[in-house]
């Protein structure tokens, strides 16, 4: 296949970026999207140009490094996949493909297609854990958890933290990301004790970091590589509202 690639190039966070156009030939349909990018970079190196920087690591859809918007969609065409799992079969000979980084104010561009997702790290540090000191745990089977609850917690916990949900959202909301963690722990007895505080603190941190509000459009769910469901957002909202009541009641005492 021959392809035309319009790729966002930006050398430094503060510098202005722009789209560069590249023509690439001999693209095999068997390549993954990142392997196509590898071969473009080989070509750029031969032409004495700076290769396109992009985050990637496991190349099997689980590390969450990938952060490309391809033809307007985070992780490109296809459902429940990451960019590294995207196959070139999804494109046709002669196609023009536009490749951009996540376009999110809270994820500034570092270089080319690489963005700074440290805002997610800050949200997690605000409450994305269970307070379980090492060495103080009871026997694992002393905590019984119904299978359906445990399975649902797993579905939420499967989040890979890539940020596609935010990139897909017209408000740049991080609700699905926050909901996945809050919901995982809200479903499990281990996470109950500090459940309300967790929901409150994580949402507050998300707001503070400039992520937008959720207006239930559902683009996050549609683009999530792990297929994480909107029902987790509903659970987060419930937790958050309860946390608000508890807070108000405590302040009135």
């Amino acid at each position, binding site marked *: 296949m021959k392809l035309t690639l319009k790729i966002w190039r930006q050398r430094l966070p503060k510098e202005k970026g722009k789209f560069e156009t590249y023509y690439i030939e001999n693209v095999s349909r068997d390549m993954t999207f990142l*392997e196509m990018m590898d*071969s473009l970079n080989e070509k750029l190196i031969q032409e004495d140009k700076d290769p396109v920087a992009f985050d*990637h690591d496991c190349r099997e859809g689980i*590390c969450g490094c990938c952060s490309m918007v391809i033809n307007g969609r985070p992780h490109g065409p296809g459902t429940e996949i990451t960019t590294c*799992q995207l196959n070139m079969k999804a494109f046709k000979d002669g196609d023009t493909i536009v490749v951009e980084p996540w376009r999110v104010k809270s994820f500034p561009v570092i270089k080319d297609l690489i963005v700074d997702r440290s805002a997610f790290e800050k949200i997690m540090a605000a409450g994305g854990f269970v307070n379980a000191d*090492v060495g103080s*745990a*009871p026997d694992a089977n002393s905590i019984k958890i119904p299978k359906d609850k445990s399975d649902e917690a797993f579905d939420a916990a499967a989040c890979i933290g890539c940020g596609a949900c935010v990139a897909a959202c017209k408000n740049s909301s991080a609700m699905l990301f926050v909901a996945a963690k809050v919901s995982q722990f809200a479903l499990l007895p281990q996470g109950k004790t500090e459940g309300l505080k967790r929901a409150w603190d994580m949402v507050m941190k998300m707001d503070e970091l400039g992520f937008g509000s959720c207006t239930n459009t559902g683009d996050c769910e549609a683009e999530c590589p792990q297929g994480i469901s909107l029902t987790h957002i509903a659970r987060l909202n419930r937790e958050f509202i309860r946390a608000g009541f508890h807070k108000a009641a405590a302040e009135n005492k």
Partner: protein
Amino acid sequence: MTVLNSKIPDGPLSEKWTNHKNSLKLVSPANKKKLDIIMIGTGVAGAAAAASLGEMGYNVKVFCYQDSPRRAHSVAAQGGINAAKNYRNDNDSVYRLFYDMIKGGDFRAREANVYRDAEVSNAVIDQLVAQGVPFAREYGGDLTTRSFGGVQVSRTFYAQGQTGQQVLLGSYNALKRQEAKGTVKMYPRRQMLEIVKIDGKARGIVCRNLINGEIERYSAHAVVLASGGYGTIYFLSTLAVNSSGAAAYAAYKKGAFFANPSFIQIHPSCIPQLNDYQSKLTLMSESLRNDGRVWVPKGKGDKRHPNEISAEERDYYLERRYPAFGNLVPRDIASRAAKERCDAGFGVGETGYAVYLDFSDAIKAQGKKTIKNKYGNLFDLYNKITGEDPYTQPMKIYPAGHYTMGGLWVDYNLMTTVPGLYAIGEANFSDHGANRLGASSLMQGSCDGYFILPYTIGDYLADEINTGKISTDTTEFDLAEKEVKNKIDNLMSIKGNTSAHTFHKKLGKIMWDYCGMARNENGLLKGLEEVTKLEEEFYKDLKITGDTKTINQSLERALRLAASFEISRLLIRDALNRKESCGAHFREEYQTPEGEALRNDEDYSYVAVWEYTGDGKEPKLHKEQLVFENVKVTQRSYK
């Protein structure tokens, strides 16, 4: 004269760890605050250790090359994590887990370390569940388990096919909690390039800030390497493409001995290479062999669709050769058996280098829903990559490089031969001998990180409470920084014609051809020659474009690759030295009439430990003799 002191405690096997813990020095809570620890790597071992040490009150500085600790490659471990809980009442025990690992490792691991892992494994499961790790459960609410290769009990806890992700996120969450408390400080997007020693002790590191290219210095009272393995020497492997052994190798060059480098696990079930552009191979979890049956056609070169080949025309070669363990033989054995069938012309797929992993019988017996529940996400993953549906036709699989049993030599305290420098998880050599059993790497990483290192490191740090802050403004740091800068300048100034990516591919092919699943003296010598030749070419013809002041992934790769060449040569040297077959190390000259690995306990019942003696010089071999007091060393049999 040997310089190795493994510090294995005296006393009966089952009391060694308890007695040892009681003899370790302690650091008081007030003094812990005065001590800094550097952690390199944030996989299961590194994240667990950093979180635990932070919780204890130490100041921990954590480094990783990714943008977040959650992306470390432990995240890709699929099948599960072992523990000797005996929840199935199938007569499992700490001793049995220990014995399975010793036997699975083909009697080339240390008894005391392996036993300790088995002993600590139960506490790991408790800890992970307390953290909210959503392991698979029975309808009654109890934890469920499954079986893995090389064992006859069901002791593997799992979270669908994403156990590594869930276990890693458990420790990542714990790490975040410590970050919030201020005991842990994260330094992501850093490439560790040099260990700094002062008065013989590890005192810090020099690393490159991958965002702005700054060379940075960090000091600490102890340095821990949790930097993983070096399986990417094969180029195509199940590892993340940026994983490498470069950090461990930097430690080797600073005086940490390297043990059993040639012990590399080739995992039997990976999606076969589809084309020449491919940048990595994807694992299909060993857990699939619980229900999947491995076969090839009985007829040579049978090109029919697998569903058209009747049961009588299929050779279920693992069940045929190993009736007692069947499809669940250890990985080294399953890999070699697949290679044997394919080399003999019975392989399937376009290249003839694949075998079938078939679920049709399991689906018939248990129903599609049950199979989907157990392996759904693995089936989806396979479908996404190959476009074939494993519910209706068998998977095609072939072995690929996966895990390195070899690594930095450590004593019972997990300290390397450099005082104050520790190695945990896959980065060390200690627990898997010549072959790792499935689901025991998450176990070992967690044991090291949560329950072993946090105790043993105190024994060293207890003597450091009066040291005070360590300055980075010393000649040792100056020198290390200069070395790093020179190295980078050298690579940037070659200005040849060939990219690091291309060199890496070439290295991978040499290593796979001459030092892969089967090895022989002539091939190894040829491989050594070719690696050396390629390395010379690398320093003459490497081309890196872009600059050093912004993200430069070609430079990052070239720095890793420079180490990979040297590791490859060390690996071949080790494989040449070991004139026996054991576990994953298969020397064609040494095999039984049935084609099984033929050990030579008389001459090779030792850990081969290599000391760096200078660039261009032969490394020096030390031997740690292995003593087996609690198991009878036998020819491994899974028949």
